[in-house]
C-alpha cells in the first residue's frame, strides 16, 4: 500500500494576527482573554516543540483550514495522528479545549471557541 503522509510539512511563517483579548468570532461567541492566555500557556508547554510558537513548524497550524473542524482537531489531539503523539492520557478535556480555543483563534486563525463538554463528546 502506498501512502503519502507528509507529517512535518513546514510552511511560511505567519505572524500572530489576532491580539490577545476579548474577541468576537463569526458565531458571536465571546472568547475571554483568560482562556486564550491559559490556552497559550498550555500550547507553549505541550505543542511548541513540534509546531513552533507561531504554529509554523512541523505540521502547520497557522492559517490551517482543518482547524475549523472541531471533531478532527479534538480527535487528533486525543488519539494522535501519524507522527503526532496522542495526548488523550496527558490532557484533560478542559486543557484540550483551551489549547483548541487558542490555536483556532490566534496564529492566523479565527474559528471560534471549543468547550470541554464538546471535547468530552469526542473521547
Amino acid at each position, binding site marked *: *500500500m502506498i*501512502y503519502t503522509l*507528509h507529517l*512535518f510539512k513546514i510552511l511560511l511563517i505567519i505572524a500572530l494576527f489576532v491580539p490577545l483579548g476579548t474577541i468576537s468570532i463569526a458565531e458571536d461567541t465571546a472568547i475571554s482573554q483568560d482562556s486564550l492566555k491559559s490556552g497559550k500557556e498550555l500550547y507553549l508547554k505541550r505543542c511548541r516543540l513540534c509546531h513552533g510558537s507561531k504554529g509554523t*513548524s512541523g505540521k502547520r497550524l497557522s492559517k490551517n483550514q482543518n482547524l475549523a473542524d472541531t471533531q478532527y482537531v479534538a480527535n487528533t489531539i486525543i488519539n494522535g495522528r501519524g507522527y503526532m*503523539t496522542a495526548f488523550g492520557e496527558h490532557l484533560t478535556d478542559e486543557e484540550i479545549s483551551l489549547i483548541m480555543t487558542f490555536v483556532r483563534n490566534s496564529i492566523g486563525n479565527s474559528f471560534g471557541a471549543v468547550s470541554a463538554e464538546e471535547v468530552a463528546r469526542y473521547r
Partner: protein
Amino acid sequence: MKKYLLSTAMIAVLGALPVSAENHIMDYKPVTQERLLDPESSDWLSLRRTLDGHGHSPLDEINKQNVAQLETVWNQSTGPYQQYAEFAALPARPAHQAPALVNDGVMFMVTPDLQIIALDAVTGEEYWRYVYEFPADIIPVHPTNKGVALWEDKIYMNTQDAHTIAVDAKTGELVWKTKLEDYRNGYYNTAAPLVVDGVVVVGTSGGEFGIRGFLQGLDAESGITKWKTYTIPHPDAPGGDTWPGDTWKTGGGSTWITGNYDKENDLVVWGVGNAAPWIGDMRPGDNLYTTSSVAVSPQTGEIKSHFQYHHNGNWDWDEVFPPTLMNLDGQDLAVRFARNGYIYKMDRSEGDFKFIEGKPYVHNDAFLGLDPETGRPEYDPDKVPGTGKYAAYCPSAWGGRDWLADSYNAKTGILYIPVNENMCGEAEGAVVDYEPGVLYLGSGLSMKLTPEAEDHIGAIQAWDIRTLEKKWQVNFKSHMWGATMSTDGGLVFAGGTSDGMFRAFDADSGEILWEKQLDGGINTPPTTFTVDGKQYVAVTTGWGVDADRVQFFIDLNRGTKTEIPQGGSIWVFALPS
C-alpha cells in the same frame, strides 16, 4: 507510553547508594588506555569491545558446535524507572540501546531514563544504582541512552539535558557534571562518551532542531573542557564557504553515535549527521562536514581530515556511524556501510580517508554512481526533493543501516552488518523558519514498502572486505534493528527483529544455530565475557524509539498492527555447567 514508576522518594534512597554489603566491586580494576586498546579476552570494556569498532570477541568456548545448548543464567528487569517525561515529542517508547560493559566480572548497564546500574556479571546482584535527575520540562525526541564509557575508576555518561557526568565506579557517587549546551535550544545527548588518554570525547544530538553540531573534549578527572570543535565550520574556517549566508549557524551536523579511535594515527574518527533543514536547496553548497566522517585529534580537537559520503544532503541520511578501522593484509583501512546504502572502503594509512572503492549493499536509486577517484556521488535529479518539489527515493530516511553496529572478524576479514532494504522514502520541501528548540526539518517524512518487502525488509549480511563481495545474507520479514557481535567461536549474535528473538548465526553460512524469544524486542548490542574461565553472552531487551517508529510505517503500509513487547531486562546466557 510506559509510565515511569520510580518516585522521587525512591530516587533519594537509591541514588548512588551501594545496595550490596560485600562488594567484589570494591576491588574494582582500573581501566587504563592499554586495557582499552588491547582488552583481555575476558572483558568487554567499551561499546564495541575494541576502540577500532570491531565488536568481535576472541572467546570460543561457546561455538557453532555447542551453541544450541545455550541456556539462561540470569534475567532481571532494569527497573524500577523514574518519572522521566509524560510523552515523547514524536510517538515512541523509551528504548534500551546500551550494551552491557563488563570489567573483571562487574557489569555496567544504563537505562533509557539514565540510571547507571553496576551488577555482578555472573549473578545479576546489584552493587549500586545511580539515578540521574532530569529537568522537569524535558520532552525527549529520542528517549534512550546508548551506553557509558569506562576509564580508570570512573564511569562516564551523557544526558538528555546535554551534560556529561562522571560517577565513581565503586560507589556510583557523582564525581563531576559538565554542561555541554542548553537543552532548551534543542541539544541533547544519547550517545556514550569515548575516552582516549584521559580525554572524554563527546558529541551531541539535535540535528532535527537546527543545532550547530560539535565534538567536545573534557578532562577525565575534572570534567573541564579542553576543546570544542564544531562540525559546521565558521565562515572564515576551512569548509565555511560551503554554507551560504547564516545557514552555518543552524546547520545541524549532529554527532550522536560514538566514534572509534585510530591508534595508528592517534585520531578519533567520528561520524557527522545530515544538515538542517533536511532539504538541500535551502542551503546550497556541499555543507561540510555534514554526512561525513571526520578524523580529529583527541588532545586538541583539530580536524585533521574528513570524507563526505554525500554532499548537500536531502534524504535525512545521517552518516553518524563511524568507519570500522582495520588492518587487512598490511593495509590500514576504514570501511563504512553508509546510511545512503553504499559501502566505502578507504585507506587510512596516513590519517586521512583515501577512497579505494564503493558499491551499493542495498538498493539506492538516488545515486547514478560514485566517482571512481573520489567516491563523490552523482545524483539523479528526479530523486532529489526540493522546496515545493516532491521526490521518492531509495533507501528510506532510515537508510540501508541506521545506528546499529556491525562487527568484524580480523582473522577472516569478514564483516557482519544488520541492514534494512525494500523500504523507500518520499519528501517535499517547504520553507521553514528557525526557532530555537523547535523542530527544523523543512520537509515531511514518510516511508513506503516496495513489492520485494513482501519477502523481507531486515537482513544480516556478511561481506568479505578483501574482495568487497557479499558472502551471505539472512532475511527477515521484520525490519532489523539490532547490532551484530561476532566471536572466534564461529558465531554471530543479534536480536533486532520484531518477534523479540535473540539469535546465533553460523558465521560461515548465516544458518541460524540457536534462537530464543525474550521478553521484548532487542535494540542493544550483545556482548560476551568470561568470569572464572566460563564464557557468558549478555543482551538487554527494551524495544522503542526509531525501531517503534519504523514499525509504525511498516504497519501503515501493510495494514497490520504489530504488537512488540517492550521488555526492559538484562539476559545472560551460558552453556550448561
